[in-house]
């Protein structure tokens, strides 16, 4: 028993290694559980957020009835999907029909093995990080094609083929954008770029500049290409042709129902989060706070600042930005209290007001804990990373609210005729500029 | 504990190669034949990477990447021929593919 505990503590002492790299199986499992649970909660939250934000964009209120302001709506949905009867079409191919959602979920979840939430907060740090992510995300195409074929009727098959054709063609554009970002990592000290996600973010830290602003227009253009390809890759918003096309009914997951459909639903949202976390890591400096290099005048406040470990910067700006996590939670708590106050006085709403007040109190408590120095230092990285990913999620919902749908041939035209050439152009330009920069500096 | 040497990988590669050859020889369906060819190419790749691991250096892996690209090209053209053939002959088992021009 002692040996096991010692094995567990051994990881805690290694300062800057991810559990996978440190070869510590136990902590890797813990991280996997954390990421898995965190992702499911994020997907549920996304479900609620999407319905509410989309509703408010469209001059309506969105789910209000289940729980205060519809907060329990996602749980109700999940329950409904679990209880619904799970139909398998008559002569559908049972094995393939059963396997397809698992391939899609597998592809959507394994991407998170490499996503760096912080310098040490990633399940493992493979030195082919990005390559692994792109590879696994291309597996979900297989799941969709098999799902479409297994339901053995015309429209799902056409929908599946269309959506996989779309995903395959946008993967190419995505790859090009990623390569041009990785090119930028090769400019730091030791001269050779790195594929590993943590390495990329450290490169951005070393060059003290997010890649979106590097070589001014190029980083931005590459980011724009990735953002568009990202939306197409997950069949969302303007590119959601296979699902919601009026003559193709609901695309590849028409025949699925109940639990299997929720698997597809889960996979779609986690794929969205996965792809936007790639974008955040590559262009927006994963867990770096907004102005990585700026520190401002170094100040010391009695036992609150500077942070415990000597290496951390002690600037005023760091202090302010370190307070952000706590402030956001307090702000959320404030919103909850504001809405409890405005809750109608009717007895029917009494439970909901109590629930909301309790929820607000919990948020306030978390906010206060986040101000406590030791917690604050550890949570800082994860907070900034998830804040950026949340920004992307809002972007997804915003797209869905405003854009009509592309026709299939226009969709392919954009993919091949517009994104690909620009991607190649950006790649060549970044390479030349990077080369020139290294030559002049030599 | 058992020390994995190249021999183990070679035996595995050979087994895979055998499976591919059996597939090519016995199956009538062109698609399955193409897939067995993929199996054979994978077996070759396995040997390449195994040797590159045990002899140090990365030449084996680089060559394995070239083999993969070649497999992709071959699969694409193979399936192209298959589609053209299927459109004219409505059937795809190998026995009928005996004319060079139809």
């Amino acid at each position, binding site marked *: 028993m002692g040996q096991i505990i010692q094995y567990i503590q051994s990881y805690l002492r290694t300062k800057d290694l991810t559990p996978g790299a440190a070869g510590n199986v136990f902590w890797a499992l813990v991280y996997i559980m954390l990421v898995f649970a965190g992702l499911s909660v994020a997907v549920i939250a996304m479900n609620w957020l999407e319905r509410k934000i989309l509703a408010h964009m469209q001059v309506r209120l969105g789910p209000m009835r289940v729980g205060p302001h519809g907060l329990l709506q996602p749980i109700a949905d999940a329950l409904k999907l679990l209880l619904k009867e799970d139909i398998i079409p008559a002569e559908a191919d049972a094995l393939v029909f059963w396997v397809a959602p698992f391939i899609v979920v597998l592809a959507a979840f394994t991407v998170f093995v490499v996503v760096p939430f912080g310098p040490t907060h990633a399940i493992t740090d493979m030195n082919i990080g990005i390559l692994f992510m792109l590879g696994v995300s291309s597996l979900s195409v297989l799941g969709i094609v098999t799902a479409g074929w297994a339901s053995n009727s015309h429209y799902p098959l056409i929908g599946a083929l269309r959506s996989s054709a779309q995903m395959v063609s946008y993967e190419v554009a995505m790859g090009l954008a990623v390569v041009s970002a990785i090119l930028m990592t090769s400019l730091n000290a030791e001269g050779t770029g790195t594929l590993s996600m943590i390495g990329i973010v450290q490169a951005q830290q070393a060059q003290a500049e997010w890649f979106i602003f590097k070589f001014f227009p190029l980083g931005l253009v590459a980011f724009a290409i990735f953002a568009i390809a990202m939306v197409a890759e997950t069949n969302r918003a303007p590119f959601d042709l296979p699902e919601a096309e009026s*003559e193709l009914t609901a695309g590849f997951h028409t025949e699925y129902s109940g639990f299997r459909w929720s698997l597809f639903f889960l996979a779609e949202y986690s794929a969205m989060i996965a792809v936007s976390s790639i974008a955040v890591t590559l262009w927006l400096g994963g867990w770096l706070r907004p102005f990585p290099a700026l520190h401002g005048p170094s100040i010391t406040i009695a036992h609150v600042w500077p942070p415990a470990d000597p290496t951390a910067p002690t600037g005023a700006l760091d202090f302010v930005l370190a307070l952000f996590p706590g402030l956001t939670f307090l702000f959320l708590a404030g919103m909850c209290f504001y809405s409890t106050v405005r809750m109608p006085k009717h007895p029917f709403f009494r439970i909901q007001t109590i629930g909301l007040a309790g929820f607000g109190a919990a948020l306030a408590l978390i906010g206060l804990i986040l101000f406590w120095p030791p917690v604050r230092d550890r949570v800082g990285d994860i907070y900034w990373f998830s804040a950026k990913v949340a920004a992307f999620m809002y972007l997804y919902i915003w797209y869905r*609210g*405003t854009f*009509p*749908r*592309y*026709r299939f041939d226009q969709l392919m035209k954009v993919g091949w005729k517009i994104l690909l050439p620009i991607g190649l152009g950006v790649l060549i330009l970044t390479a030349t500029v990077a080369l020139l920069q290294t030559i002049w500096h030599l | 504990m058992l020390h994995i040497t190249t021999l183990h990988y070679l035996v595995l590669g050979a087994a895979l190669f055998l499976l591919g050859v059996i597939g090519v020889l016995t199956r009538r369906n062109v698609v399955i034949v193409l897939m067995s060819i993929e199996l054979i190419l994978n077996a070759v790749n396995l040997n390449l990477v195994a040797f590159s691991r045990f002899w140090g250096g990365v030449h084996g892996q680089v060559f394995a990447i070239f083999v993969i690209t070649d497999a992709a090209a071959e699969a694409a053209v193979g399936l192209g021929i298959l589609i053209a053939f299927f*459109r004219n002959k409505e059937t795809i088992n190998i026995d009928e593919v005996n004319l060079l021009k139809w």
Partner: protein
Amino acid sequence: MTDPNTLSPPSLETHVAAHDDTFLDTNELVINMGPQHPATHGVLRVILRLDGEKVLGLECVIGYLHRGVEKIAENRTYTMFNPYVDRMDYVAAVSNGLGYCEAVEKLLSVEAPPRAQYVRVILTELNRITSHQLWLWTHALDIGAITPLFYTFRDREEVLKIFEKYCGARLTTHAFRIGGLQYETYNGFEQEVKNFLNFFRPKIDEYEELLTTNRIWVERTRKVGVISGEDCIALGVTGPVLRASGVKWDIRKAQPYANYKNFDFEIPTGQNGDTYDRYLVRMAEMRQSVRIIQQAVEGIPEGPIMAKVPKVMKPPVGEVYHSIEAPKGELGYFIVSDGSTQPYRVRVRPPSFVNLQALDMMCRGQLVADVIAVIGTLDIVLGEVDR
């Protein structure tokens, strides 16, 4: 255009079965966009002949909503038939009523008093706005834009409130009577209409902001379902579709009725008759309606609201054809009376029925996804098509 025997339904089923399994062969695939399809506005069945994705030919099968209104009219008195008229184009019920009442008044050679005519113009133009709003909602939804749906509905409620206050019903209003109006306008009617106008003017800009410069919207509608002016006239297509193809024909200007002559408003026209121009024409028409209502509300004269019309009408033997500019096009009534209290024959010329004939011409060579966009821009209502 499409000779019926190649498309007659019995051969269709065998045709579809033969080509069911192989996708890749070259000859065309025939599919039904069935009567309960999400994108056809009501019960319209479209038989599409496809070559892969491109539409070769198209035939509309209608009649699923046929209620035999015209036959019923033959044993109803003139006033009893009035509510039936609203059920035909249920989206623009008020303008149906106006058309019918004016036709019968022409038969009786009776003139509705000016106050009645002003109120009629206000209500018809308000109804035109609601009809265009509903068109914008369904059309945008088919192409994928979800948000306009809610904006248009929020504004449509205001108009429906005014209808409800005036004549008790929101959709099938039955607001007019032969010879004028049934009820005096409730006090505050003018004020409420003015409030609505001020409320609605910025709202049209809101719709425009959402869609007009939206790149994907333009790409989905530009050069889709193109039809030239001559074809429109040949096919008898009228209304916004005709005006979008460049032909400046609006019955309110050409044959003014219900003293439209003393309101000044332009007739918006498009150039190349594609879906985008039809969209612009309809948006501009909404603005023109606001202008007309503005002038009508300010100039409402005092006076009686009902002309002297006998309780039991026995119009002289004869026939009359009277057409008005309904939101979807020229809505005509041809009434033949044999001197008795009941019309001998009532023939309605609905704009949607005639515009539907142009669907095949517009969709030829387009893609399947465009067929839905074109059905949307034609703004057809099946109640009117099938009668």
